[in-house]
């Protein structure tokens, strides 16, 4: 039976390569992937911004779209956390299949840390807040990256500090958000990496946006893209 990919509205629209890479990695490991085309958004932005009614509609849509699948896999810790942790606050009766962030699915369900990837670059991992403190995925992304051939992993000084994105926080408190992002960017680049990666496209959008404005700097690549890369 196929697993369902929940690509997220953000990756679908702005970072399709993260979704394509997720499909490639899973298929390479023999997983049959389906993309239920009725999917849109998990409702996180509305929920976290206080728009409960809109969030409830989107959550109901998610539950309906993914009903019947054995598992859902998503290239976003934040969106997976939304479904797993916050849906019960929207509607305790809402039922969804188990939703996994990609690295959780690879390490915990498939039991794989070496996905056969080749990526000869110095990489720094931005550990996202929702991967650390909601999903508690710990060092799974690091385990996967450590097994990538040719990849050299750099260590930031403050690996568990927020990058300052925070959804609508980024636009409601733009100065604080940008100050946090600048500090995070400095920390990540001091580690001397060519590539910044993460389990969440949203953080990369924010950090990449700051870096682009500044000019130069590292490339921002979703973790799935590194895992999909081969020789």
């Amino acid at each position, binding site marked *: 039976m196929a697993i369902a990919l929940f690509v997220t509205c953000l990756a679908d*629209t702005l970072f399709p390569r993260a979704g394509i890479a997720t499909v490639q990695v899973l298929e390479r490991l023999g997983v049959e992937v389906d993309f239920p085309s009725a999917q*849109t958004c998990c409702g996180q932005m509305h929920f976290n911004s206080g728009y409960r009614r809109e969030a409830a509609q989107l959550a109901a849509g998610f539950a309906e779209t993914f009903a019947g699948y054995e598992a859902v896999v998503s290239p976003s810790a934040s969106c997976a956390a939304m479904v797993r942790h916050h849906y019960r606050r929207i509607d305790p009766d809402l039922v969804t299949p188990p939703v996994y962030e990609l690295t959780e699915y690879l390490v915990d369900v498939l039991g794989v840390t070496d996905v056969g990837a080749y990526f000869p670059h110095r990489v720094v991992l931005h550990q996202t*807040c929702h991967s650390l403190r909601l999903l508690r995925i710990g060092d799974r992304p690091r385990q996967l990256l450590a097994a990538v051939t040719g990849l050299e992993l750099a260590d930031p000084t403050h690996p*568990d500090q927020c990058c300052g994105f925070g959804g609508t926080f*980024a636009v409601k408190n*733009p100065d604080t958000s940008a100050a946090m992002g600048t500090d995070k960017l400095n920390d990540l680049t001091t580690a001397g990496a060519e590539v910044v990666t993460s389990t969440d496209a949203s953080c990369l959008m924010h950090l990449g946006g700051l870096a682009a*404005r500044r000019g130069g700097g590292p490339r921002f690549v979703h973790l799935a893209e590194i895992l999909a890369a081969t020789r």
Partner: protein
Amino acid sequence: MTTPTFLGMPPFPVTARAALSDGQLRRNLAGATATIRDRRARSVAELDDWEALRAAGAALKDDVLVRLPELLAQLEANVSAAGGVVHWARDAAEANAIVTAIAESHGVAEIVKVKSMATQEIELNAALERSGIDVWETDLAEMIVQLGHDLPSHILVPAIHRNRSEIRDIFVREMGRVGRPAPAGITDQPAELAEAARLHLREKFLRARMAVSGGNFAIAETGSVAVVESEGNGRMCLTLPDVLVTVLGIEKLLPAWTDLEVFMQLLPRSSTAERMNPYTSIWTGVTPGDGPQEFHLILLDNGRTDTLIDPVGRQALRCIRCSACLNVCPIYERTGGTAYGSPYPGPIGAILTPQLRGIHRRPVDEQTASLPFASSLCGACFDACPVRIDIPEVLVHLRAKVVDQPGHRAERATMAAAAAVLRSPKRLAAVQALGGVTAGRARRLRLRGPGWIGGWFRDRDLVPPARMPFRRWWKERSR
């Protein structure tokens, strides 16, 4: 001495912006919070049963909140039986009036104060000054704030935004105006600053006939009140004057003496990162011939029962004012505490202040309404909280309350439009197609505009919408 207040401050994004541009403040805060964060992590890691302690602390406080009327009555009976006088204050004005009346009944012209969040909350100092009574903060950091005509910016370390050379300047400039001047030639060495404070305060301790304190805990079973501190200046106030007045939030209760055991482990490690705090003072009513001979306990509501009615928000009343959430908060670290416009800054302030100001009963002002949004929801505060307050959960809950208030028309329209698109895969695909065409071959977007657009693009670019969104890629691949 005039005390500034938080009244009339602009919303958080505005105050934060000003704070962010203060390089000295950013350096002071980054250094101080990083130090205390690391120390707390080490001190907590020493205990194998930290998670069990947190759960016990949360459960004990939840029990108190459920049984509050019964426990308060028990506390009142036991304090009265031990020779204390219990007063009930619905709000700040009532509490301030009670303290003022007690001072006036004794003809007292000056009061020494133990560091206390409850009295900051009710702005007692300003109220006493309006009645012509001098009030002296005796906690070192509170004294620095008071002498500097400043506002507190941290629960535990209210002068955290000051470095020692700023403190030296404040001492030199201000001490002589209100008492013993700073010694001539004083430098910014911590020992010299502490000595100047000691000499300055000693005069006030020996002269004062009345003291005001808050309380960390009150034990219903025995009628005892506890103050936990580091300097011993609190104990001076609690033991030297004839009259002692304690202002206590009604949620500070613990049912039994033995419950203190849990909190005396949780609080010091979470706040100062110490295994044990240096001074713990516990007293029960009055003791003839020893210490204050008159003890008043003012039980303060000031929005607490309004907070208690909300099933999600009420967990904020578990708070033991340790400051761990401030120290780990990446927003607090960059903006400092004054930006929050309340003596309760940081994550706990962002959920406590709006509730104490009545958000569950009526619309709140713009500044108060901005507080629940002063968070990236990173979750570091919840992990650090010794009584397991799920601060992100309450923040999001309060955001929904704010959004339901009148106003926010532009934002509401934006969010409704976004929801309309996101509810329908067809509309989402249409918007993606439009975005892809509009962006053309641009490698990055750099827009100008009002509101959220301006907010994003002030410091950031944006990747353009993909010319081949994922859903189209999938569709073409499946053909």
